[in-house]
């Protein structure tokens, strides 16, 4: 096998799997599942092989749109450490999720559709990771949105799932619209859509010199809009918690580890553009920090196990975006890398719990699961420890320290927020574990729960390993991913560790003390807790805003429609068109003689027009 063809195979294999499921094996869920899982395992293998591919490897690109001789849009590949590492994350977690789904979706009606969706997602995500230009990335960006829509709405008979799918799709559209404008601005300003070309032009030839800062800022922020939508940053974060209506393995793969991280990945890809504009980085960092903070606050009072994890994901994504904003894209990518493993682990673990409890998602109706599901419990605790960033023994610690370190160097206010989030994270995760796993069972479903089958716990165990070791140097160096390590290496800042460890202990302690032995939410009546539980009423505010805006708009458009469009513009031509069409129809009398007559008339007309005019 030619090494140069490797990325093509990784890209096309999932597509092949999705297409063949749709065309041939739609009837048989089991065969479809095997095809899809097989393709995921093979791509994982290839993803590992890909890690050894050198940076200067040239992969044949496919000229997609030949718009003119000097503007060709390619399906091309940019193989560097960034894409190789991201590809490893996508394929590894993809494979684990596929295997987990074999058991989780065992009896689902739409199993074939589900696996076709997963395969299609893998294809689209691979396209984003490999893309060497903005247009290709945008195309696959949309495809990812589409597959996410299909998978969130997998149980479309449920209204809430159908609504969530629609919400995710529409919210993403808003962000993508900005992204598209951003791409056009980049293209307009740099005359190129290829990342490497733009990078070299920006750095070497300074084509952007003389362009006003406002325009540059608009360019960067419009591109950032894409990340706001896809990575669910404030104010477009509302779709992600609702997306938890999809099957849990989907949440693990798409809405925790890979797709939502695509925004961060894209920012890392174009991170050379951010310093071009003074102030753009600042905006990005603050949006990330605010997202991280309010999401962590919201997570404090959620009762649905998946929603807690969803808000936690939001919060961690905010972390990463903040890091990109303070020009520490490598730290962001490092955190993306480790976070993908432990968050996928947590989601799959929650999936195992939900499965064992017969689709019960409320943590207050669980309890005492630690004894009944020991493997799930242990792996879940490992994931939690990594998420909290337990010093020195978990991967999350290293990546989080990298971001905190960057914040400490760059921006003190952001550091304070980030450190406070460490406390919040420790608090809500401890609450989750104490309520769901410890104590005694609080419902029949929880009482009857037992350990999940091997197909489900094996992926958990396999993901637990990188959750611990992914932060160690030997792991990422072993995979030739050195740039993913923090750039701010050097002497470990002792104060940093002390502060974050203190926050951690404080958070764990508070939650442990507050929730041990409780059977209902002790802070239920607390005003502030209410605000958190209702997610700052942002959804309600949006609903109100949209209603007011829509009603106003509707009233206006109604007037406009009736008075102007209908009355003047549409009535006339539409009626005219129909009338004209009917007249033309009448020409079609069905009578051969009149046809002959029209033919003759036409002939005379044509001869007149050609010869005598």
């Amino acid at each position, binding site marked *: 096998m030619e090494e140069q063809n490797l990325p093509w195979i990784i890209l096309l294999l999932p597509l092949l799997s999705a297409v063949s499921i749709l065309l041939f094996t739609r009837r048989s869920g089991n065969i479809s599942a095997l095809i899809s899982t097989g393709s995921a395992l093979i791509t994982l293998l290839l993803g590992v092989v890909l890690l050894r591919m050198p940076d200067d490897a040239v992969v044949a690109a496919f000229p997609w749109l030949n718009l003119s001789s000097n503007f060709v849009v390619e399906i091309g590949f940019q193989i560097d450490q960034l894409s190789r590492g991201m590809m490893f994350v996508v394929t590894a977690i993809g494979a684990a999720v596929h295997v987990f789904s074999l058991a989780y979706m065992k009896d689902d009606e739409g199993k074939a559709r589900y696996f076709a969706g997963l395969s299609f997602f893998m294809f689209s995500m691979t396209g984003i990771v490999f893309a060497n230009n903005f247009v290709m990335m945008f195309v696959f960006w949309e495809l990812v949105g589409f597959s996410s829509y299909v998978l969130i709405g997998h149980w479309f008979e449920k209204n809430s799932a159908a609504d969530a799918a629609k919400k995710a799709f529409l919210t993403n559209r808003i962000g993508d619209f900005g992204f598209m404008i951003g791409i056009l601005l980049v293209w307009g300003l740099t005359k190129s859509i290829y990342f490497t070309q733009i990078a070299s032009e920006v750095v070497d030839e300074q084509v952007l010199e003389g362009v006003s800062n406002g325009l540059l800022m608009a360019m960067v922020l419009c591109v950032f809009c894409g990340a706001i939508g896809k990575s669910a940053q404030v104010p477009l974060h509302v779709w992600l918690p609702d997306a938890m209506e999809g099957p849990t393995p989907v949440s693990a793969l798409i809405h925790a580890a890979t797709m939502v991280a695509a925004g961060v990945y894209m920012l890392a890809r174009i991170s050379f553009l951010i310093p071009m504009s003074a102030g753009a980085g600042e905006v990005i960092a603050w949006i990330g920090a605010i997202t991280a903070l309010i999401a962590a606050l919201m997570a404090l009072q959620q009762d649905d196990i998946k929603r807690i994890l969803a808000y936690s994901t939001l919060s961690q994504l905010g972390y990463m975006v903040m890091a990109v904003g303070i020009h520490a894209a490598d730290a962001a990518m490092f955190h993306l890398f480790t976070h993908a493993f432990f968050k996928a682990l947590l989601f799959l673990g929650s999936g195992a719990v939900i499965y064992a409890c017969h689709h019960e998602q409320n943590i207050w109706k669980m309890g005492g699961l630690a004894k009944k599901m020991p493997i799930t419990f242990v792996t879940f605790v490992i994931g939690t420890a990594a998420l909290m960033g337990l010093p020195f023994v978990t991967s999350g610690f290293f990546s989080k320290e990298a971001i905190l370190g960057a914040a400490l160097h760059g921006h003190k206010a952001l550091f304070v927020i980030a450190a406070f989030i460490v406390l919040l994270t420790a608090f809500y995760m401890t609450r989750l574990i104490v309520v769901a796993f410890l104590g005694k069972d609080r419902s029949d479903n929880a009482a009857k729960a037992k350990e999940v089958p091997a197909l489900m716990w094996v992926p958990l165990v396999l993901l637990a390993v990188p959750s611990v070791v992914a932060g160690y140097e030997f792991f990422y160096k072993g995979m030739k991913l050195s740039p993913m390590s923090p750039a701010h290496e050097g002497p470990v800042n002792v104060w940093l560790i002390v502060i974050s460890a203190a926050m951690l202990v404080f958070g764990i302690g508070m939650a442990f003390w507050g929730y041990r032995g409780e059977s209902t939410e002790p802070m239920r009546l607390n005003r502030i807790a209410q605000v958190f539980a209702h997610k700052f009423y942002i959804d309600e505010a949006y609903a109100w805003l949209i209603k007011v805006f829509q009603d106003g708009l509707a009233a206006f458009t109604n007037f406009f429609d009736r008075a102007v469009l209908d009355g003047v513009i549409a009535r006339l031509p539409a009626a005219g068109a129909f009338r004209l069409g009917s007249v033309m*129809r*009448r020409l079609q009398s*069905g009578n*051969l*003689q009149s046809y002959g007559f029209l033919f003759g008339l036409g002939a005379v007309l044509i001869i007149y027009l050609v010869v005598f005019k």
Partner: protein
Amino acid sequence: MEVTLNHFLFVSGLLFAIGLAGVLVRRNVIVIFMCLELMLSAANLSLVAFSRFNLTESGGPDYNAQVFLFFIITVAAAEVAVGLAIIVALYRAKQTTDVTQINSMKN
């Protein structure tokens, strides 16, 4: 009086016009069909005339056109064979060859 190319073309044009007029005004399908053949004959006549007056370098007529003419006659024969068969079938189905009677499809 010498007969020139223009005389031939005039006659052929007349033939063509008569054929076309017949197609437009007659109601019997068979007569219409005959008029169509008349139009082909008009073309044949002008081809022969052009062949006779477009002398080649050797001084003889341009036989290309005359060969074409035979093709036209052959094709016309095939057309008539098929056409009459269709008309007969139509007559058997509707007991009429009047074109104004065949208008079940319209608009």
